[in-house]
């Protein structure tokens, strides 16, 4: 690194320029990662937080895949699942988006999650009546309501039994209600709507025993009950807003990674070509190709790690500044450090491919007058 360090200092302007590019791309990637995670949390935290491992949707598997907004399961489907082999618990879950209001005129869009009181799926305890609701913190804050206050959900008045958790779904805070209240607020529609049984809902949340035959047993029950069951992780794709949002954000992030690898590769390609004559001289003087490659790669890594560290620090600082506010931003090692590691790895790959041409520099060209 003797020459590499001195080149870094000597060609300050050039290296500062590419360093700044690395800092900015890292900052952008870091912010985007935090934002993606933040948006995803607002979109799916109510589902990921469910104590279940699979979700059963109504209907046979179609082209579009299951969807929370189209699904409606009946009481008989639920009963089929409740006695299915390999299933430890099956809980109906009703999901509807509606407008919530509070006494003082505050109103907000919420997702109403109807569950069986005491069923364990949501924070609605046993014995709570159909005129009660449990607000998530987000809903309580938006409505300015607290325990004992009354709120209206789709013009139905409910008493706040408790404020629990910060679940949110499709960018709206969740209000948990007993299944009966949910059925009043959002009457299940479609062919299965008529089938009462008290357990009509949107989907069925399943906890399976996770045995080796689970998949086969689930497929069997799907057939009998006329449902489509996917894992909880796969069910996130059934939230319309999540797939489109997450998909485009991940695409942006992927492009940024690719762009940074290309920019770094291009920079080091030009730089390596420029110092070709120096490399020829060093080889003629007896430097081994391995040493020269190591130094060139070391130089690239200094730049990469320095730039990425600065960019990551900036992203973390900015993220910390905005995460208190309305901007959904998740600041964790996963959202900030992981993209930094990917940046360094991809940048090193780009640099490695470009400094490779050191191998083919002919020391003979150092002789003679052509320089």
């Amino acid at each position, binding site marked *: 690194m*003797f*020459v590499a360090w*001195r080149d870094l200092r000597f060609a300050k302007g050039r290296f500062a320029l590419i360093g700044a590019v690395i800092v900015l791309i890292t900052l952008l990637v870091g912010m985007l990662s935090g934002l993606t995670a933040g948006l995803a949390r607002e979109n799916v935290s109510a589902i990921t937080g469910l104590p279940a491992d699979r979700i059963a949707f109504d209907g046979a598997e179609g082209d579009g895949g299951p969807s929370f907004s189209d699904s409606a399961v009946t009481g008989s489907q639920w009963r089929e699942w409740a006695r299915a082999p390999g299933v430890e618990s099956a809980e109906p879950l009703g999901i509807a988006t509606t407008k919530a209001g509070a006494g003082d005129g505050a109103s907000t869009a919420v997702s109403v999650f109807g569950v069986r009181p005491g069923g364990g799926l949501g924070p609605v305890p046993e014995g709570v009546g159909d005129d009660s609701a449990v607000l998530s913190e987000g809903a309580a804050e938006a409505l300015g309501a607290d325990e004992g206050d009354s709120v209206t959900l789709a013009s139905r008045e409910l008493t706040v039994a408790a404020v629990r958790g910060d679940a949110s779904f499709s960018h709206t805070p969740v209000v948990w209600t007993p299944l009966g209240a949910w059925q009043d607020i959002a009457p299940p529609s479609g062919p299965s709507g008529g089938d009462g049984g008290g357990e009509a809902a949107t989907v069925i949340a399943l906890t399976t025993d996770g045995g080796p035959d689970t998949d086969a047993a689930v497929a069997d029950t799907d057939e009998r009950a006329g449902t489509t069951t996917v894992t909880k992780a796969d069910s996130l794709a059934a939230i319309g807003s999540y797939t489109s949002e997450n998909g485009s954000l991940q695409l942006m992030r992927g492009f940024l990674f690719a762009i940074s690898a290309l920019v770094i590769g291009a920079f080091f390609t030009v730089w390596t070509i420029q110092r070709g004559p120096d490399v020829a001289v060093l080889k003629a*003087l*007896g430097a081994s190709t391995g040493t020269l490659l190591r130094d060139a790669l070391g130089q690239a890594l200094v730049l990469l790690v320095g730039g990425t560290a600065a960019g990551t620090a900036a992203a973390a600082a900015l993220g910390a500044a905005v995460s208190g506010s309305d901007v959904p931003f998740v600041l964790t090692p996963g959202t900030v450090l992981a993209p930094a590691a990917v940046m360094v790895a991809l940048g090193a790959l780009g640099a490695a491919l470009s400094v490779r041409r050191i191998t083919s520099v002919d*020391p*003979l060209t*150092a002789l003679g007058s052509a*320089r």
Partner: protein
Amino acid sequence: MSLELNDVTLTYPDGDGRLTALDRVSLEVPGGGLTAVVGPSGSGKSSLLAVAATLIRPDSGSVAVDGERVEGLAPGRLAELRRSRIGIVFQQPNLLASLTAAEQLQVMAQISGRPPRRARPRALELLEAVGLADQAERRPHQLSGGQRQRVNIARALMNDPAVLLVDEPTSALDHERGAAVVDLIARLTRGQGTATVLVTHDRAHVGAADRVAEVFDGRLRLPAATG
């Protein structure tokens, strides 16, 4: 300390055939000896140096540097031979833009796997020997052409080479400075005991040499031994 070329033939691809750049050349230079090589342009002088510097492999014949035969050595071993036993003074100074004069010399320690910092006293000593004691901290763009050429010479001597190969060191200099550089090389050759080959265009500079070899069309002609 010596350089030996024995029956060396070198050809380059030339269209459909081959161009013979060196034709059965034999040359022996003892340690402390300075052999000047002159000849018209295109006669094969640089090719001779390139073969001696192990930068190009001859078609046939043998090369021995400091008693070690170089045929069949792997590229890594050849690089090691170059950094430890061969000093090359390039036609152009070929200095690295980001390094000071002293650092140009310290690089030789670094590529040999020794800490450059500890090579600094030796570097300063050599710079003093070539009359650049005051210029040690200057970068190439702050040096004159003659000063750069002297750094180039000092660098070639940094690892105490057995063989010193010098390719037209005066082509970028005026006559007076050119003569000074050739005198310096002659003095260092005797002082350090290197086996030196000096390629030059300028016959006026050959006075400092022990003997003058002429190359013509790839053939080397040595004079009848002089004193």
